[in-house]
C-alpha cells in the first residue's frame, strides 16, 4: 500500500467513484466523482489530532461494529492516503449543529466544511477493474441465528478480535461477555452518581443510608426537622440506587467467571455451496478458518478449534501442509459435516447440531464461540460498474472473462482481476493483478489491441 502511495507514476483517487467511461481501447475518457472529504488532501498530514478531540462517536465499520470511531476518521490506522475524512451523516457541523472542535485543533488548517464534491475527467488508455467482493451477510441463514446468538460471529469479526490493534486487543473475548461488561460499566456510572447523592444525605444527617432506610421502612425513624424534610426524597433516591446497584452486583459476580473463548467452532460454506444463496465455492475460506484457528491457539495455547466443512479445500501452495500443521500443533480438528442448526444454552454458549458423517449420527456439541466462514459475494456495485463500463457479468454477478483470455472483459481495453472476477486467494489475486497490468500496458503500447493474447 505504501509503495503504491509513494509511486511517482501512480495517482491515487481515494473516496471517488467512476461515473462514466467513453471512447475505446487506447483512448478512454473516464469521469470520476470525487466525494467531499471536508478535509483538504494537500494540507492534511494524517496526524489524527482531529479524531482525538471529535465528540461524536460512530459505529466503527472497519472493526465490524465492535468499536467506536469518531465522525472525523480514517478508515484504519495504516490506510493510504492517510488523509482523514468527515462522515457527513454524523458530523455535528455538517448536520447544522454547533461544534467545529476538529477545525480548531487541526494545526495544518486542513478542515474545510465548505468542501464540495468535484468531478474529474481522466484520459486513459485502459481500465482495470479490481473492485473485490462483499462479505455475505449470514443474517439470511435463519438456522445459524446470527444476530440472535451473540457468540456466533463472522470470520471478519473474528479477524478483528485477533488483531492486536482491534477492539479486543487480540484477546478472543466473547461478545456476550463484552455486552455484560459494557452493561456493568454503564451501571457503575449510574451507581457512582447516585452514591454521591446518598453520601450527601449521610453527611448532612450523620447516619448511614442503610440505618436510615431500615428505620424509615420499619416506621421507627425519629426524624429531626431537617430529616423530616429529606426523608422521602432520601428513601426514593436509595430505592432508585438499589435498582442499579443490585443488578450490578449480580453482573459483577457473573463477570468473575468470564474467560476468553477457548472452544471454537468454525462453520465453512456459510452462504457458499448453497443453492439458496451462492452455489459456488468461495475458495479462500477453508484456509482463513485454519489460519484463524492457528492464530487463536498461538495467542492462547488452551484454545482448541473444530472446523466443520463438507470438504477442506487446502488447494494452494503449502496449504495442505499448513492444514496438517494446524492439526498436529494447534489443537485444530476437521469434521466433515454441514452444520444443520445453532442454538444456545443458558450460559450463552452456542450449541451446534450436526450429523457426524463418519458415525452416521446426529450430534450436539457446545462451544464458547462460533465463527461463520462467510461467502465471497459479488460486490453490490458490480452491476452498476458493468453498466458504466458496458461489460458483462456472469450468472453469479462477477465480471465475465473467458478462459483463453482470463483478464479480458467483454469490452476491449477493459480488464479485470482478483475477486471481482472470481473468488480467489491473495497469491492468485496478486498474480492476476500483474497480468492485468500487462494487458493494460499492451493496450496502451499498441492501440490496435489484438484479442489474441
Amino acid at each position, binding site marked *: 500500500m505504501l509503495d503504491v502511495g509513494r509511486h511517482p507514476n501512480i495517482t491515487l483517487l481515494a473516496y471517488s467513484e467512476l461515473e462514466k467511461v467513453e471512447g475505446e481501447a487506447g483512448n478512454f475518457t473516464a469521469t470520476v466523482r470525487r466525494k467531499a472529504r471536508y478535509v483538504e488532501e494537500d494540507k492534511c498530514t494524517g496526524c489524527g489530532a482531529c479524531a482525538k478531540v471529535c465528540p461524536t462517536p460512530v459505529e466503527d465499520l472497519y472493526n465490524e461494529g465492535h468499536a467506536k470511531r469518531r465522525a472525523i476518521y480514517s478508515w484504519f490506522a495504516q490506510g493510504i492516503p492517510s488523509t482523514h475524512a468527515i462522515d457527513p451523516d454524523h458530523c455535528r457541523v455538517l448536520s447544522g449543529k454547533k461544534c467545529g472542535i476538529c477545525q480548531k485543533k487541526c494545526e495544518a488548517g486542513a478542515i474545510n466544511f465548505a468542501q464540495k464534491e468535484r468531478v474529474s475527467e481522466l484520459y486513459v488508455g485502459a481500465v482495470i477493474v479490481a473492485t473485490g467482493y462483499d462479505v455475505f451477510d449470514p443474517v439470511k441463514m435463519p438456522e445459524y441465528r446470527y444476530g440472535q446468538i451473540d457468540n456466533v460471529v463472522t470470520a471478519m469479526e473474528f479477524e478483528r478480535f485477533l488483531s492486536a490493534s482491534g477492539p479486543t486487543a487480540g484477546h478472543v473475548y466473547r461478545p456476550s461477555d463484552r455486552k455484560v461488561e459494557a452493561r456493568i460499566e454503564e451501571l457503575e456510572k449510574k451507581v457512582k452518581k447516585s452514591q454521591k447523592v446518598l453520601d450527601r444525605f449521610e453527611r448532612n444527617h450523620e447516619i448511614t443510608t442503610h440505618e436510615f432506610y431500615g428505620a424509615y421502612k420499619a416506621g421507627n425513624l425519629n426524624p429531626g426537622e431537617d430529616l423530616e424534610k429529606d426523608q422521602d426524597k432520601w428513601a426514593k433516591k436509595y430505592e432508585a440506587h438499589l435498582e442499579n446497584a443490585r443488578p450490578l452486583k449480580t453482573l459483577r459476580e457473573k463477570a468473575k467467571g468470564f474467560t476468553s473463548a477457548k472452544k471454537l467452532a468454525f462453520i465453512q460454506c456459510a452462504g457458499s455451496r448453497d443453492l439458496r444463496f451462492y452455489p459456488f465455492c468461495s475458495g479462500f475460506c477453508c484456509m482463513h478458518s485454519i489460519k484463524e484457528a492457528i492464530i487463536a491457539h498461538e495467542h492462547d495455547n488452551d484454545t482448541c478449534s473444530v472446523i466443520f466443512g463438507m470438504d477442506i479445500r487446502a488447494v494452494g501452495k*503449502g496449504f495442505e501442509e499448513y492444514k496438517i500443521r494446524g492439526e498436529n500443533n494447534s489443537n485444530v480438528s476437521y469434521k466433515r459435516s454441514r452444520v444443520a442448526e445453532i442454538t444456545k444454552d443458558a450460559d450463552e454458549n452456542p450449541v451446534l447440531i450436526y450429523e457426524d458423517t463418519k458415525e452416521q449420527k446426529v450430534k450436539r456439541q457446545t462451544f464458547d464461540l462460533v465463527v461463520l466462514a462467510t461467502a465471497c459475494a459479488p460486490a453490490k456495485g458490480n452491476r452498476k460498474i458493468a453498466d458504466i463500463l458496458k461489460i458483462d457479468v456472469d450468472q453469479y454477478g462477477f465480471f465475465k472473462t473467458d478462459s483463453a483470455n482470463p483478464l479480458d472483459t467483454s469490452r476491449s481495453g477493459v480488464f479485470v482481476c482478483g475477486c471481482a472476477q472470481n473468488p480467489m486467494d491473495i497469491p*492468485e489475486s496478486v498474480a492476476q493483478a*500483474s497480468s492485468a497490468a500487462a494487458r493494460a500496458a499492451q493496450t496502451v503500447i499498441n492501440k490496435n489491441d489484438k484479442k489474441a493474447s
Partner: protein
Amino acid sequence: MNVKNEILYESPRIGVFVCDCGSNIAGHLDCPDVAEYARTLPDVVYAKENLYTCSEAGIGEIKKAIKEQDLNRVVVASCSPRTHQPLFSSSCAEAGLNPYLFEMVNIRDQCSWVHMGERQNATHKAKKLVRMGVAKSAGLAPLDEIESSLVRKVLVIGGGIAGLSAAQALADMKLDVILVEKTSGFGGLLQQVHRLDSGKSAKETMLTIIDDVCSRPNIVCHTQAKLKETGGYIGNYNVKIETKEGLFEEKAGCIVVATGAVPLVPQGLYGYNGKNVISLMELEKKLKKQEFSAKCVVFIQCAGARTKEKEYCSRICCMIGVKNAMLIKKKHPLTDVRILYRDMQMYGTYKEQMLWNARGMGIRFDVYNPGNPPEVKEGKLEFFQAVTGKTVSLDTDLVVLSTPLVPGNDSGSLANMLRVPTDQNGFFLEAHAKLRPLDFAADGIFVCGSGRYPATSTEARTQGIGAASRVAAILFKEKLVKSAIVADINPDSCVGCMACLSMCPCEAITYNREKQTCEVNEILCKGCGNCAATCPSHSAQLRGFKPEQLLAQIRAV
C-alpha cells in the same frame, strides 16, 4: 561525484529538524526542548522545530537551510524512515545535497508512541536518539547511486502454456524474446490433454497460441534446446544454450522460468498396470484416440498425493477427474462413472458449478478415508462407504488414478544453474508466498506455471502474462538505478577466508582466485550487511553503515 560534496564532506555542518507532527509527537514530548538541545551538539550549526516537517512548508525550510546555512548534513527527527526517508533524502538532493548525507531519527514510534504519558522520559530519550543521529551523520560520506545498463531481451525457459503466454505478452510489449523448449515441440503437458475444462480441444487451443508465437518477428524460438550455463545479473544475464546446431551464447535482461511439471506415474499404487488400472494422463490419451470403453469406471483421487512423503495437494487433479468423468458420461450415458475422493477441490465459481453439473449427470461421488483406502483387485474395487457404514464392492473394468503433478527431474539442476531456491517438494520457491508469487528473491528472474505449483491451463496462462508484466516493469526503464547502500570489500586487507561468501543471501560475493580475495557484485548486493558482520578482518563494510559511523552513533548513547 559532485565536487561541492567532496569538499563539504571534510568539515560537517549539520542541520537538525525536529517534527511536532501536529500533536502526534509534540503532544507527548517537548519538541522545542529537543531542538534547543540539538543546537548544543557538536557540528550542529542549525536546528529547527517544525509543525510538520513533511509538509511543503517543512520541506521548504530544509531546502532553505541547506542553501542559507551551507548545511552539508541533514538530520530529521520525526516518524518512520520506512514511510518518510525517501521524501526527505530526495528533498535534500533537490537542494543540491547528496541524499546519502541525510540521516533520520524516529522519535514518533520510539518516543512519543511507546512512552505516551511519560513526557519527561520521552523527551530525554528523543534527545539521546537525536544525539546518536547527529553523531552518525557527522561521519556520513556522499555516495552515488549505482547504475547499470539493461538488455531489452528476455529468456523464457519452457514452451508450455505458461511460457508461451509469457512470450506472447512480452512480444506484445515490444520486448525481444528467446523461447527455449527442451522437447521437439511447444505445448507442454497440454499436448497430451484431450479437452480443456471449457470443453474446447486442448490441441486446437494450443495450436492457435503456438502459431501466433512462432509468427512473431521478435520471438526467437528454439526447440530441443537446453540451457547449459548462466552468468551475470539483472539487466545483463549471459546464457549459453545448446541446440541441435550447437552451443550459442545470448544476452538477456531478465529470465522467466516456465518449465512446468510432470504427472506422477503411479507405479505400485492400486495395482497400476497401464491397462485396466491407468493414470489420469493415460485416460486423456485414450479419450483423445477415442479408445475409451468401459461399463464401470472408477476414479481414485489423491493417488500418490497428500501422503506422508508428498504432503501437498496437487490442486488440479479433482477438476481434471471431474472434467473427464463428465466427458465419459456424456458420450457413454450407460457407463457407471464414480469418483472416490478425500476432499473435492473444486474451488471458485466455475469448478464448483462443474461439480453440481457432474452430480446432476449421475456421476457418483464417495469419500474415502486415507487410513482405509479403496482396494483394487482383478476387476473388482472395494471401498468403505462412510455415509452407509458399509463396504461396497464394484465390478469395474477401468480404474483411473488421479496422480499429482511433480517437478520434472531436471528442475533441481536448473534451479542450481540459476541459483534460485526450490521448496520441500522440489517446486520453484517464489520470493514471497502471498505478495510476490511470480518473483524469485533474485532480481530479474521470474517464475510461472506448474513449475511453481500445479496450475490449471487458465491459471498458467494468467501467471505467464503476469510474469511478463513483472519483466516489463524492469526493462521499460532506461537503465537500472539502485541504492548506493551496498557492501565493499577492501582487497588490500581481505585474506580470502570466504566467511562472507557463505553468509551472503544474494550470492553477490565471489572469490577471485587470481587475487585471492573476495569481491562484491554491486548489482546483486542488497545491502543486508551480513558480510560486514562476519568479516574477521573488517575488510567487508557496508556503505552508510561503516564501523566508524555506527561506533560514533553507539558512543553517543
